[in-house]
């Protein structure tokens, strides 16, 4: 007779050994270095940073190596590390107009102050496999930075201010202003304060910023297909480095403590106006660690859809309901709970078994009695 009630400890140990072997793959192939992941799988590293909400490319690369490239598992590892870190200080708000942009495009004006700057993008690559990459032999890599930037606008020199494409519209009153909430309350911290719905926009944006990219993409795409359509235009999409500043208590003025790469998207959407407000464009906002236009743009579409109460818009689709969009968008919570169904459920299942047997008995005895 075989009853597997004991032996869990040995099984787990064996499973860990097997996992380590599976992670390593064929030992004849050279081991992957963390630095290679960080440098050559940069967009994957960025996704882990963003959804773990911990800006540490080195540890994100390590997490990816350990997780065998599973993004959600790597995000999980990094979040579990993040939670152990002390909170030293709060930085000042980022000024993205001062971004050292590596890429900035606006879909609403052909040319505009600061120009259109293509930068590194897959957008115009034509998706044909480059079989030459199969060979690991190094191809010629340029050592000098490109002098001519892929810009359609006037030539740019470094460190120039890059005003947001929406600024001129705001100056003309054509688009809503971005103003602090009434009384400018400090934003809640979604990693410390349990959510109480409805959440203010400041909390929603935090949750969207680290929500699962695929979930946000699907939600955003739904709005484009008619499930709470918002008439979007890509107002200003930019990627680059911004300075982080903080004000130490002992100094009393801001000092720069470092730089991070971020992607920002300001989406322009329609609003027909109301009895008290003239028609004007409205905004959806997206901000993501690292380089991910797909996520920043999705976030801005979903952010706008979630503002239906501000504009008195009829709620007709799930993407407008924060209690649908936000908690389900956390891939660590979702992945954990979906997969917890692998855990033993003998006790609850046994009680279900008893019930269903009783019900069936009742069903058949009633049939016999007919």
């Amino acid at each position, binding site marked *: 007779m075989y009853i597997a009630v004991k032996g869990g400890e040995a099984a787990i140990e064996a499973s860990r050994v097997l996992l380590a072997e599976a992670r390593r793959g064929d030992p004849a192939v050279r081991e992957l270095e963390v630095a290679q992941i960080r440098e050559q799988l940069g967009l994957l590293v960025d996704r882990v940073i963003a959804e773990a909400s911990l800006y540490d490319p080195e540890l994100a690369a390590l997490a990816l190596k350990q997780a065998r490239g599973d993004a959600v598992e790597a995000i999980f590892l990094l979040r579990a590390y993040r939670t152990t870190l002390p909170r030293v200080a709060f930085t000042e708000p980022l000024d993205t107009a001062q971004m050292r942009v590596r890429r900035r495009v606006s879909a609403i*004006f*052909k040319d*505009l*102050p600061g120009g259109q700057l293509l930068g590194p993008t897959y957008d115009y690559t034509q*998706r*044909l496999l480059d079989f030459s990459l199969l060979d690991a032999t190094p191809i010629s890599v340029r050592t000098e930075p490109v002098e001519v930037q892929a810009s*359609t606008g006037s030539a740019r020199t470094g460190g120039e201010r890059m005003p947001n494409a929406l600024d001129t519209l705001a100056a003309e009153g054509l688009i809503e202003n971005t103003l602090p909430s009434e009384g400018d309350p400090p934003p809640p911290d979604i990693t410390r304060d349990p959510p109480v719905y409805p959440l203010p926009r400041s909390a929603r944006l935090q949750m969207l910023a680290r929500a699962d990219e695929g979930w946000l993409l699907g939600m955003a795409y739904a709005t484009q*297909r008619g499930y709470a*359509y918002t008439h979007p235009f890509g107002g200003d999409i930019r990627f680059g480095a911004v300075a982080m500043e903080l004000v130490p208590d002992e100094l009393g003025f801001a000092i720069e403590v470092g730089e991070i790469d971020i992607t920002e998207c300001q989406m322009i959407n329609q609003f*027909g106006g109301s009895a008290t407000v003239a028609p004007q464009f409205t905004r959806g906002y997206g901000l993501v660690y690292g380089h991910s236009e797909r996520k920043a743009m999705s976030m801005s579409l979903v952010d706008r859809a979630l503002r239906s109460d501000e504009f008195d818009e009829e709620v007709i689709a799930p993407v407008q309901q924060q209690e649908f969009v936000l908690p389900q968008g956390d891939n660590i919570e979702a992945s954990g709970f979906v997969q917890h169904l692998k855990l033993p459920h003998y006790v609850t299942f046994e009680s279900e078994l008893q019930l269903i047997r009783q019900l069936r008995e009742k069903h058949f005895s009633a049939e016999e009695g007919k």
Partner: protein
Amino acid sequence: MIDGYNFAYLDERTKRMIRRAILKAVAIPGHQVPFGSREMPLAYGWGTGGIQVTAAVLGQHDVLKVIDQGSDDTTNAVNIRQFFARTTGVATTERTREATLIQTRHRIPEAPLTEGQVLVYQVPQPEPLYKLEPRRSETLKLHACEEYGLVNVKLYEDLAHWGRVDTTYDYPVQVNGRYVMSPSPIPSFDNPKMHLMPALQLFGAGREKRIYAVPPYTDVKSLDFEDHPFHVEPQGHACALCGCTTSYLDEVLQGEGERLWTCSDTDWCREQREAA
């Protein structure tokens, strides 16, 4: 030409399948014909439908022009033109009058098109009713029954609310007195150009897997009411480069809040300057 791929990228059987869909679309003007849209080496939403239609009808002797926002040198237009140059070797041009096939996104050229030309539109959303009824299973029935009450009510509500129709691009049209059709997101300024156009107009929506068409010299009517006829709001500016006052203009920001307007159709602008 690039090795390892057929002329115009798609294999001949796929092109034949697309041409069959096009023939059906031409036979039923404005009706959306489903087709086996292929994965293309370009992202969805960037012209995969237009590219498939162009690939299916492009011949070795065609002269191809590709525009986006009216211009040949916008990045997406450059990319698509280079794609066909690489995969077909056909001649390309920036001149509207020299092209036999023009693929466009968001504009109809200002220069009148002729019988020998084909205009291929890139279409993001072929279903003109989707903002009113997102379920395609339902819109299919509405089209079948010629039941366009939803869109008429929407236009009526706009008029009651704003005194004008709240749609400035992708303004729905009725084709050949039957099907309501999306003209693709061209400005409503361009809608009248579709009416009785001598050129064949083909519309490709890759992601949504639909093709539709307007044959030459077909009635295309922008939806309106007798007492509120469709009309185009003039922009009220002249092109800063050529002085044209009848073309559709792009607004270009100059910094310090200054702005100027230039022809969106860059080839038209060139013609006007050369004629001056």
